[in-house]
């Protein structure tokens, strides 16, 4: 059974290559996107940390900024 799934009547090389290629593309795209997302978020947190109290309070009044900061631990 397992041998049949692997060899696929002589077509195993082609079928598995296509699926592995697809899978590797998925993993690469996911990792690259995740790295970009994390990098941008870290940059935001660092910049936010440099703001003085008044500017930080103003920035925090925007819901999206609050959301970015609150999501830091969950992603």
């Amino acid at each position, binding site marked *: 059974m397992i041998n049949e*799934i692997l060899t*696929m*009547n*002589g*077509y*195993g090389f*082609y*079928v598995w*290559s*296509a*699926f592995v*290629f*697809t899978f590797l*593309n*998925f993993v690469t*795209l*996911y990792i690259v*996107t*995740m790295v*970009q*997302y994390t990098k*941008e*978020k870290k*940059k*935001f947190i660092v*910049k*936010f940390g440099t*703001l003085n109290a008044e*500017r930080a309070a*103003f*920035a925090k009044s*925007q*819901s*999206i*900024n609050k*959301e*970015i900061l609150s*999501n830091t631990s*969950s*992603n």
Partner: protein
Amino acid sequence: MFKYFKPNKIFSVTSKAPKYVLLLFVIIFSIGLTEALILSPEDYKQSHAVRIMYVHVPAAWISLGIFSVITFLSLIGYTFKIINFFLISKSLAPSGLVFNIIALVTGSIWGKPTWGTWWAWDARITSMLILFLFYIMYLVAWRIYENNDKAFKVTSVITIFGIVNVPIIKYSVDWWNTLHQPASINILSKSSIHISMLFPLLIMTAAFALFSLLIFLMKYNTELIKIKNKGLDRL
């Protein structure tokens, strides 16, 4: 109506959605893989090589679909000056490109056992390669012009030229004598594919659509944070 597309309003949803989409994708993709590699029958002519269809066809469909959506959003965005539509388009493009590459490469792998060649300058394959070039041009334009008015203009023009190629891809197998087989699935008429093969194909399409949604959400959130980073600089 457009006020609902304001980034501030939708970020609270898009920032939480990826983990649920990822979970759903893993479940659907696992079912799809089991169906495609083990449970679905082999073809009477192509034998097990037909299984390549389960990655090749959904990838081609989604890559074409994403380019069409990008064009539509770019045109609406440019006409009504809705910057968020450009952000959505920009965030969709990477997964569209990757699905285009998957369609081209898996098509080439499928071509070897069925046609006896890895590549042919056939109308369908060549027009898919042209779509790949349009995706590259679109993404390079964003790299060059960043998020400014010129980027909106240039990327819109690229999509307008690129969308001409989409019906050519779709009907190339009918208009010309090609190595590539005609469509087996028709929405308006009876499909020539058996249900035992159609079912895994639709499951894999759903999985691929979920994956592109996942990448889109992550990319879109990144773009929004990038804009907010610039906003902090101006404070």
